[in-house]
C-alpha cells in the first residue's frame, strides 16, 4: 500500500478533518512535526504507523531488522539533532529496552518519540503486557492518547516535551486506538533544520564514570517532569453532578468511563508518568470515592496508594482485557450498591469457532502437511503465520513464546531430554523475517554448542502475518524499491552449519521435503532446510491454473482435507462398512475453483487422481467408473 502511494506520487492531504486510524494519526503528526527519520519492525497493532509514514515525503523511513535496531536508528538521528520516531508493538520493547535503558541517561538532542502499541485484549499477540511500566523503569515521560485525534495531538506534544527535557518520550497506544478510525483535525508540516552531531564523549559514551555522572541528571529531569505534569493541559479534570464516585483514568478507558458515567467527575491523565499527585489529591477531595480505571495493570492505582490516597481499582475491575462499558457499568453499580443494570437479554447463539487459517495455496500448508506425517518428533515453533501449524488438521507445532525462541528452545529440548526421549527428533520451525529478527543468534548457539536440531527455515520473502511487509530477505525496501537481499543458505553456512546439512527445497514438492526431513532428522548434528516459495499475498506469487474435483472419481477418502487448504470443501459425508467389518467415515469433496490458485498440494494425497485442472474435459463415464472402482470396492 505504502509503496503504491509513493509510486503514484499521491500528494499529502492538506490540513483538514480526516478519518484516520490512531496509527495514521500518529504518522501524520510525526511528519507535521518535521520528523526526519522513522524506523520500525512490523507488529500488530503497530504496523500501520510506519506503513503510513513511508508514504510521506521528506522523511526517511525504514523497516528495521528488529525493534532494538529500529530504536537505535531513531536514537542515532536524535543524537544528531533530527526529530525521529520509532514504533513497535508491546513485546517489541522487550527487545529494544536494552537501548532504551541507557539512552535515558544520555538523553537526546532532536526529539525522539517512541510509540508502543499494547495489544490490550490479545487480538494478535502472545501476551498482554503493560508498556506503561517502561516509563517508570526508564524514567522517561509517557503519554496516553484516548483516540485518533489525541494520538495526533499527543505525538506533536511528545516531540515538544522530548526536546524541552532532552528525553525520549513514549506514546503508549493500544489496539483500541491504533485500529479505531475517527475524525482528526490536522495541520501542515513544519521543517526543522538540524545542527548535526556534536561530539561529547562525556554524554554519548556511556562508560561507568560518564553514566554515573548522568544518573542524578536523570532523576532531576524526572522531578521537573512531575512539575510539568502538574501544569500540563494533557492532564485535566472534568466536573460532574454525581460526585459519589470520581474516576481517574487514561487512554481509551477514558472514553469508556465517559460513555458509562456521563455525570461523574473524571480526571483524565494524558501525561500519565510522572503522575501529578497534587492535582490528583485536589480532585480526590471533591469526590466521594476515587476509582482508578486503567488498562491493564494497577500502576496509577498503586502509585496513588503509595501516596497514602484511598483509591479503588483492580479490587473491583479485571486485571486483563479492555475496560469497556459492559465491564465498567456492573462493577460500579455493585460498588454503589445499586441494582445491577439489566444485562443484555440475548445470549450469544452457539456457532462453531472460526479460527484464522492459512491461505489457499500457502507454501506453509505443504510444510505442515509433511510435518504432520513425522512420528516421534518435538517441534519448537516461532512467531508468524506458521504458528497456526499447532492447530487442526496438522497439530504439528509444540511450543511458541517469543520471536526467535524456536532456536534456543529446540537446543534446550535437545540437551534437556529425558531417557525416554532418547530417540525423539527435535525440530525448529521459523520464518525468514523472524530468523533475521532474533533467530540467527539462536542458530549460532545450536551450532556452537553442538546441538542436534533440524531447523526448517520457511522463507516466503515477507512478514506474512502483518500483511506481507518487506524485510532484508525480500529484496525490497519499505517503499518497494530494490534492496540488497540476504542469501539464507550462505548465511546459515557462515554461522557454521555444514554445507551438506543445508538444503533449499521447494515447499510444494512434498516428496522431496519429506525425504529431506527424514534424512536430516536422523543425522545427529544441526541441519537447516530452507523452503523458498513466496507468500501468496505478495506480488512475487504467481497463481497457476486452478483445480477441480471430478465427482465421479472422488472416493471420499478425505486425505486431501488433511492438507488444510481452505479451498477444499466437503460436499457429502457417508459411513461405509469395509469387507473387514470396520466402519469408515467418508467425506466427498469439491474444490472452490474460484479461490484455488493451482499449487497442487492436494494432488499428492489423492489416490484416485480425482483432482484435475478446471479445463480438463470430463472423462468418459465408463472409464472413470472403472478407474474409481478399485479403491471403493472395499
Amino acid at each position: 500500500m505504502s509503496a503504491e502511494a509513493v509510486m503514484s506520487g499521491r500528494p499529502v492531504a492538506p490540513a483538514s478533518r480526516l478519518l484516520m486510524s490512531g496509527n495514521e494519526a500518529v504518522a501524520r503528526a510525526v511528519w507535521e512535526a518535521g520528523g526526519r527519520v522513522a524506523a520500525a519492525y512490523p507488529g500488530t497493532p503497530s504496523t500501520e504507523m510506519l506503513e503510513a509514514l513511508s508514504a510521506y515525503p521528506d522523511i526517511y523511513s525504514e523497516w528495521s531488522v528488529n525493534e532494538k535496531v529500529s530504536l537505535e536508528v531513531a536514537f542515532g538521528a536524535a543524537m544528531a539533532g533530527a526529530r525521529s520516531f520509532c514504533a513497535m508493538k508491546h513485546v517489541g520493547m522487550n527487545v529494544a529496552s536494552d537501548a532504551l535503558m541507557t539512552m535515558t541517561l544520555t538523553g537526546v538532542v532532536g526529539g525522539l518519540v517512541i510509540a508502543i502499541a499494547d495489544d490490550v485484549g490479545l487480538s494478535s499477540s502472545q501476551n498482554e503486557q503493560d508498556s506503561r511500566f517502561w516509563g517508570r523503569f526508564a524514567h522517561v515521560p509517557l503519554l496516553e492518547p484516548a483516540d485518533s485525534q489525541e494520538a495526533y495531538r499527543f505525538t506533536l506534544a511528545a516531540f515538544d516535551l522530548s526536546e524541552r527535557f532532552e528525553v525520549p518520550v513514549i506514546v503508549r497506544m493500544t489496539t483500541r486506538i491504533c485500529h479505531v478510525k475517527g475524525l482528526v483535525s490536522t495541520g501542515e508540516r513544519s521543517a526543522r533544520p538540524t545542527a548535526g552531531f556534536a561530539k561529547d564523549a562525556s554524554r554519548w559514551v556511556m562508560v561507568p564514570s560518564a553514566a554515573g555522572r548522568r544518573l542524578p541528571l536523570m532523576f532531576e529531569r524526572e522531578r521537573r517532569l512531575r512539575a510539568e505534569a502538574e501544569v500540563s493541559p494533557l492532564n485535566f479534570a472534568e466536573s460532574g453532578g454525581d460526585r459519589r464516585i470520581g474516576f481517574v483514568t487514561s487512554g481509551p478507558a477514558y472514553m469508556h468511563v465517559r460513555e458509562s458515567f456521563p455525570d461523574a467527575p473524571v480526571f483524565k491523565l494524558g501525561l500519565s508518568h510522572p503522575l501529578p499527585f497534587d492535582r490528583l489529591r485536589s480532585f480526590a477531595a471533591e469526590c466521594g470515592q476515587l476509582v482508578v480505571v486503567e488498562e491493564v495493570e494497577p500502576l496509577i492505582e498503586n502509585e496513588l496508594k503509595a501516596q497514602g490516597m484511598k483509591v479503588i481499582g483492580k479490587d473491583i475491575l479485571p486485571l486483563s482485557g479492555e475496560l469497556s462499558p459492559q465491564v465498567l457499568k456492573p462493577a460500579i453499580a455493585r460498588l454503589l450498591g445499586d441494582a445491577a443494570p439489566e444485562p443484555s437479554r440475548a445470549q450469544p447463539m452457539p456457532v462453531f469457532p472460526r479460527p484464522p487459517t492459512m491461505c489457499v495455496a500457502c507454501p506453509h500448508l505443504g510444510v505442515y502437511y509433511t510435518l504432520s506425517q513425522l512420528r516421534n518428533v518435538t517441534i519448537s515453533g516461532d512467531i508468524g503465520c506458521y504458528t497456526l501449524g499447532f492447530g487442526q488438521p496438522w497439530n504439528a507445532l509444540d511450543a511458541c513464546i517469543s520471536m526467535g525462541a524456536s532456536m534456543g528452545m529446540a537446543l534446550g529440548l535437545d540437551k534437556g531430554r529425558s531417557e525416554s526421549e532418547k530417540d525423539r527428533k527435535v525440530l525448529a520451525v521459523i520464518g525468514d523475517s523472524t530468523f533475521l529478527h532474533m533467530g540467527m543468534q539462536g542458530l549460532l548457539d545450536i551450532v556452537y554448542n553442538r546441538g542436534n536440531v533440524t531447523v526448517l527455515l520457511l522463507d516466503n520473502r515477507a512478514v506474512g502475518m502483518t500483511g506481507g511487509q518487506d524485510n532484508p530477505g525480500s529484496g525490497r525496501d519499505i517503499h518497494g524499491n530494490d534492496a540488497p537481499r540476504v542469501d539464507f543458505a550462505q548465511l546459515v553456512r557462515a554461522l557454521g552449519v555444514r554445507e551438506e546439512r543445508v538444503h533449499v527445497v521447494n515447499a510444494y514438492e512434498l516428496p522431496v521435503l519429506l525425504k529431506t526431513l527424514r534424512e536430516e532428522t536422523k543425522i545427529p548434528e544441526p541441519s537447516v532446510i530452507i523452503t523458498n516459495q513466496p507468500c501468496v499475498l505478495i506480488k512475487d506469487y504467481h497463481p497457476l491454473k486452478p483445480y477441480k474435483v471430478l465427482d465421479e472419481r472422488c472416493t471420499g477418502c478425505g486425505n486431501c482435507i488433511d492438507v488444510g487448504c481452505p479451498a477444499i470443501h466437503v460436499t457429502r459425508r457417508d459411513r461405509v462398512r469395509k469387507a473387514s467389518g470396520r466402519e469408515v467415515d467418508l467425506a466427498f469433496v469439491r474444490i472452490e475453483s474460484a479461490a484455488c490458485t493451482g499449487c497442487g498440494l492436494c494432488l499428492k494425497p489423492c489416490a484416485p487422481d480425482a483432482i484435475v485442472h478446471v479445463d480438463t474435459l470430463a472423462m468418459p463415464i465408463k472409464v472413470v467408473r472403472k478407474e474409481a472402482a478399485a479403491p471403493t470396492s472395499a
Partner: protein
Amino acid sequence: MAQEAAFTTTNILVVGTGGQGVMTATEILAEAAIALGHDVKKTEVAGMAQRGGVVSSHLRFGQRVLSPQITPGTADVLLGFEAAEAMRWRHMLRPQGLVLMNSGRLVPPVVELGLYDYPADPVGAMRAAGTHVVSFDGSAIALGLGDVRLGNTVMLGAISDHLPFPAEVLEQCILKRFAHKKPEIVELNRRAFAAGRAAAEEAERVSAAAD
C-alpha cells in the same frame, strides 16, 4: 429512526469473515455519516482476520461519539456478510434491532474436518429467537454480476434504506471510491448496489407477508 438520530448515537455492526470486505464496507458507511456532519468512530475486533477468521466491525455515529465499541444488546442494525457470522453476533442487537444478512455460507476448515457442525438454519434459529431478520443470497447476486468481490457493495445496497440518511448519500460514497477506475467498474458497483437494495426490499416484503 431518522428523527432520533440527531440526538442519539446510531450503532451499526458489520460482520463476516476475513477477506469479505467487511472493514471496507464499514469505512464507506463511516464516510457517508461524515459527509452528513456526524461524529464517527469505527473499530474492528479483527484479530488475525486476514487469515479467514471472524471479523466484526463497529460503526457508531451521532453528535459526539465517545467509546468506539457497541455494547452488546445495543446495535441498531446487524449487517451480516455470512450466514453463521450473522448468527454469531445476534446478541449484539437491541431487542427491536434489524438483521440484514447474506444467506451465503463460507464453511471453514474446522467444519470440513468434521470437528464442528455448520448451523442447519441460521435464519430460522434467529427468527425463532424473536429477531427480525431480512435475509437474501448476496453472494449469488454478486456472482451473478460477475464478481464475488461485489458482495460488499451488494450488502451496502441492502442496508441503504435502513439508515438515518438517504440511500443516495451512501451510493455516492461508494461510487466516489471507484471514480478513478474504469467506467465499467463504476457501473458494476452501481448495479450491485441497486441489486442489494432491491433484494433486501423484496426479502423484507416476503418476510412481512409470512408474518
